[in-house]
């Protein structure tokens, strides 16, 4: 088996086991916590043997598996508006369909941990689930970051809430809080996070050995689902080996890397492949993306720390990409454009997601008009297939790369 297959096979096995455990939760009696991806506190939950379920990831899986359209309609049938987040409606639709996900049945929540409050929709989403399932809801109030940090006061504020959450978890699970175990879990998180940063940095080479958007969104799955486990560390070790060997052979995701781009915004999951093709045909390779950082800005030095587990969880929770203000996000885009020697910025705006889309037009204005970065902004949705118009997207993408290619040709 080549290295490439080994990484893929391990990911498949680990995720298969994870979904199997979700299907078995009813029988095993293991307590189930629902939580969000950005800045989540899964390390703490693992100390109580709680099984994490990520509704956002279920929603994106339904998108890829072409189930999202029907599920969204189910939610709309009971009154959800067409403007509501596609992920929320997908999840409500799943609930209305006996929670039959593309990977088998999902368990009901015993505890809902709203770990990120920067997106107002997240709070409303779990409030709805708390209502429908009659489950306990714990909302972490996460301070929004307006500068790199966070401050000591902010960390103390979040840690105090984490202590409260630990009490809730102990009560729900019947497992006492073992702080030594938290150290072990955070040290596993740290090991995987360090390897992931090396993976991301591999895209600095020419050609990049992988697409830091279209491939990275799959590579980041173990980190978002299995962080704090040994399998997760092993996966990133194998992935890094694979990318290093691709790097040595000069192999990349496109036959010839013609344009290096930075991508901002989540992908249109229901049309993921066809969207990628629109770029591939121009020899486009993403060398950095912001979406691959929704599960953590590790490349910005935000790691879990076994020496200070609670503080590092608090720090991590506040440093999720969408919890950064627009100035910080803009600086990050600038950093990526420079660090990865990108030719252009691509912004995929998501119709039903404000937490990502707000400010994107301003990014475009500043970077394109004031700083001369060729910037393309296209729009569809992350979950709702109705918002994807291939002919129009293709037209914009073709025009953009056509003019970039032309400028190169005439030496402009």
């Amino acid at each position: 088996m080549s290295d490439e297959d080994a990484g893929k096979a391990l990911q498949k096995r680990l995720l298969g086991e994870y979904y199997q455990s979700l299907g078995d939760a009813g029988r095993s009696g293991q307590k189930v916590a629902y939580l969000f991806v950005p800045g989540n506190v899964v390390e703490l939950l693992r100390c109580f043997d709680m099984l994490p379920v990520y509704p956002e990831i279920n929603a994106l899986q339904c998108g890829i598996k072409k189930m999202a359209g029907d599920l969204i309609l189910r939610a709309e049938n009971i009154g959800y508006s067409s403007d509501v987040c596609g992920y929320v409606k997908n999840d409500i639709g799943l609930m209305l369909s006996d929670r039959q996900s593309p990977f088998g049945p999902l368990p009901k929540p015993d505890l809902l941990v709203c770990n990120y409050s920067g997106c107002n929709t997240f709070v409303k989403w779990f409030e709805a689930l708390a209502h429908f399932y009659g489950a306990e809801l714990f909302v972490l109030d996460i301070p929004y970051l307006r500068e790199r940090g966070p401050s000591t006061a902010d960390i103390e504020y979040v840690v105090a809430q984490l202590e409260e959450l630990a009490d809730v978890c102990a009560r729900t699970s019947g497992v006492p809080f073992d702080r030594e175990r938290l150290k072990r879990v955070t040290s596993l998180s740290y090991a995987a996070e360090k390897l992931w940063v090396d993976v991301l940095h591999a895209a600095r080479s020419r050609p990049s050995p992988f697409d830091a958007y279209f491939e990275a969104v799959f590579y980041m799955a173990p980190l978002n689902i299995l962080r704090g486990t040994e399998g997760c560390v092993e996966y990133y070790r194998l992935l890094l080996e694979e990318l290093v060997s691709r790097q040595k052979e000069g192999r990349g995701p496109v036959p010839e890397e013609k344009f290096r781009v930075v991508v901002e915004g989540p992908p249109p999951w229901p049309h993921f492949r066809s969207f990628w093709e629109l770029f591939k045909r121009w020899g486009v390779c993403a060398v950095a993306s912001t979406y691959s950082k929704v599960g953590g800005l590790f490349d910005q030095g935000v790691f879990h720390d076994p020496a200070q587990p609670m503080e590092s969880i608090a720090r991590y929770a506040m440093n999720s990409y969408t919890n950064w203000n627009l100035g910080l996000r803009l600086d990050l885009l600038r950093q990526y454009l420079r660090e990865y020697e990108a030719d252009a910025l691509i912004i995929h705006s998501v119709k039903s997601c404000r937490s990502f889309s707000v400010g994107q037009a301003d990014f475009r204005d500043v970077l394109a008009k004031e700083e001369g970065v060729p910037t393309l902004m296209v729009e569809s949705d992350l979950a709702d297939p109705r918002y994807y118009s291939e002919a129009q997207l293709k037209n914009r993408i073709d025009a953009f790369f056509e003019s970039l290619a032309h400028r190169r040709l005439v030496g402009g």
Partner: protein
Amino acid sequence: MRTYVAGADVGSTTAKVVILDGEGDIAGTSLGPTGASIVEAAQRRFQEAVKAAGIDEHEVEFVVGTGYGRFKIPFGHTQVTEISCHARGAHHLFPGTRTIVDIGGQDTKAISVNELGDVADFCMNDKCAAGTGRFLESAALTLGLPLEEIGPVSLRAARPLRITNVCTVFVESEIMSHMMKGETVEDILRGVHNAIAGRSISLLRRVGINPEISFTGGVSRNVGMVRALEDQLGLRVNVSPLSQFIGAIGAALFALERARGGKLVAAPVEGGT
């Protein structure tokens, strides 16, 4: 033997073909509805344009296709998006052009170009057809007026209405509600033109409004829209009698570059739409 090239612009509503001679002068043109068959529409327009030029089809050395139907044009040698073509065409007719507003059947585009006519930046309307040519067509239909009359009628408005909803789906109910209130056709139409101009200008602002501004696409034939744009911009806009052909002219100019041995950005391999 003289050189001839062609540009075929198959849009969502109309198909246009322009034949240029080796000097870049127009030898023949043809325009007609796209209809259900892109292939047929393109072929018919090509044959007509060739006939108008008084030449044989095989004398056309190179053909560039553009518009939504560009990949389905059977006789096209390569494809260039209409964004690049409109930029090139408008710059050819009005060399001082730095900004282009193109209002077509389903799209509105704002394009900024450099002094060579190359695209510097562009913005297009969102997925829906609100505020495009289709809205004007539906408005004309609702009012029972031929499309070419609504512009001149709008210029006779005494008190233009303020219309905010330019949704193409709800155009009938929007207009009927104003008619019920006793508003005049002239005032309604001026309101419609102003609303569409306003939306187009907000697109233009995103790429930057630098004179000269050229107005292209089918809707530029509408004097009411020209007036509405000029009033709101406070600037004159260039409009050519050939405005509907500008995309095809641009495509033909790309074809000419190629025929002269120049390099042309190759369209990527088509993966099927």
